[in-house]
């Protein structure tokens, strides 16, 4: 046999693109172009599907391996959360973050914030919105918020560990308390908390600080998205979080806000 590459013509450009897309050879810009085509061009989608089918048998060579016994329960738990959110979790992975909802508060005692919030809570059952102290954008509230002024709580298990990320939303105070006590940093990743909204994609609730409790201001737009069953996901990100135009990293934990 002589030089195989001399045989025959190259494939049409579109079909090459399909194969390159399947293989993952493309840079970010061309990948986006291919994804656009995938949704708008049935012929291209068909070519992608064909290449996937052609290459799929390569995966037969991979040795099967048994995942941990807790895998199925984990999946079920994730499904429950995803169902409630009504929003595909997969979208979380691909969505560019739109809003950096908060920045890490500096110079503020997280423990003090927590204490303050809980101490203040009994007095805030039915306040006028504009009397709320230090609550970010004023006059959020409206009937909807104050009608459901009970805190929402999520306790998010972290992987296989006994640890949990505690999230408490206090509608009256328009803030969310994120407790990561017990968690420790690995030095190479940060973890970022996201709210999965029904129709506005995901919203970052900021980087979780291991071992600390933080309060996150909840603005009006965000408050509207918070309700019993709201889905939260924790992703693994580079140090500093996903960045202004970053893509959310892999989901490492998830949970739902529940009425107490």
């Amino acid at each position, binding site marked *: *046999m002589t*030089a*195989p*590459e001399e*045989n*025959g*013509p*190259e*494939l049409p450009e579109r079909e*090459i693109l399909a*194969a*390159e897309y*399947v*293989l*993952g*050879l*493309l*840079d970010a810009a061309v990948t986006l172009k291919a994804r656009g085509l995938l949704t708008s061009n049935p012929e291209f989608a068909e070519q992608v*599907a064909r290449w*996937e*089918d*052609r*290459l*799929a*048998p*390569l*995966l*037969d*060579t*991979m*040795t*099967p*391996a*048994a*995942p*941990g016994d807790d*895998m*199925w329960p*984990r*999946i079920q738990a*994730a*499904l429950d959360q*995803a169902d409630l959110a009504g929003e*595909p*979790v*997969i979208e979380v*992975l691909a969505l560019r973050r739109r809003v950096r909802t908060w920045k890490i508060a500096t110079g503020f005692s997280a423990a003090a914030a927590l204490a303050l919030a809980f101490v203040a809570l009994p007095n805030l059952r039915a306040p006028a919105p504009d009397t709320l102290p230090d609550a970010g954008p004023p006059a959020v509230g409206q009937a909807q918020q104050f009608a459901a002024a009970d805190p929402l709580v999520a306790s998010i298990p972290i*992987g296989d560990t006994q640890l949990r990320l505690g999230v408490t939303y206090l509608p009256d105070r328009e803030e969310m308390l994120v407790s990561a006590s017990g968690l420790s940093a690995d030095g*190479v990743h940060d973890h970022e908390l996201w709210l999965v909204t029904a129709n506005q994609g995901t919203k970052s609730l900021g980087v979780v600080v291991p071992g600390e409790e933080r309060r996150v201001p909840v603005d009006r737009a965000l408050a509207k998205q918070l309700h019993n069953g709201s889905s939260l996901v924790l992703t*693994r990100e580079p140090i500093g979080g996903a960045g202004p135009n970053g*893509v959310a*990293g*892999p*989901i*490492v934990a998830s949970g739902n806000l529940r009425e107490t």
Partner: protein
Amino acid sequence: MNDPGPHSTDVDTARTRLREAMQRLAEGDRGALEWIYQATSAKLFGICLRILGDRGEAEDALQDVYVSLWQRAKTYDPGRASPISWLAVFARNRAIDRLRKSKVRSGSVPVDEALELPDKEPMADAILESGERSARIHHCLGTLEERQQDAIRTAFFEGTTYAELAEQRAVPLGTMKSWVRRGLAKLKRCLEE
């Protein structure tokens, strides 16, 4: 309805049952997902593990796979080749996405080990084999030049981009693209012979 699980040893029957389960899944049957999980998780976890080279990452990826599957079941086209192929690519894509976003690449298994034959998983065998198509792709890849095979395999198993491949192999980007594109054209011709 309450299928006891994938114990069939007949490839066609197994494939049919998986396809049926996928269709039930698309109709929102959670039980179908559990059946599919039991039937396919070893294979899909093997893929995630192989690509990510890290058990924790692979388990996270596997969770993504089944949660995404549940949410995307409607996108499965029963007319497409084999359902396990679709699932395998689905898992591979999730794992590659994860690989790119994390820094676990250094721990991944070398490509050569991908050529190991699978263990005999009694449950998995029948349902998971795509049979002769598998042999065909290996044969056809084998007809390519070494450097073409290398580039295509590396991209497929590691999600390596053209730019990364060119850098790793110390060739100009245009050269790498040319190798791969000619390789793909030849691969397609061979597969369709």
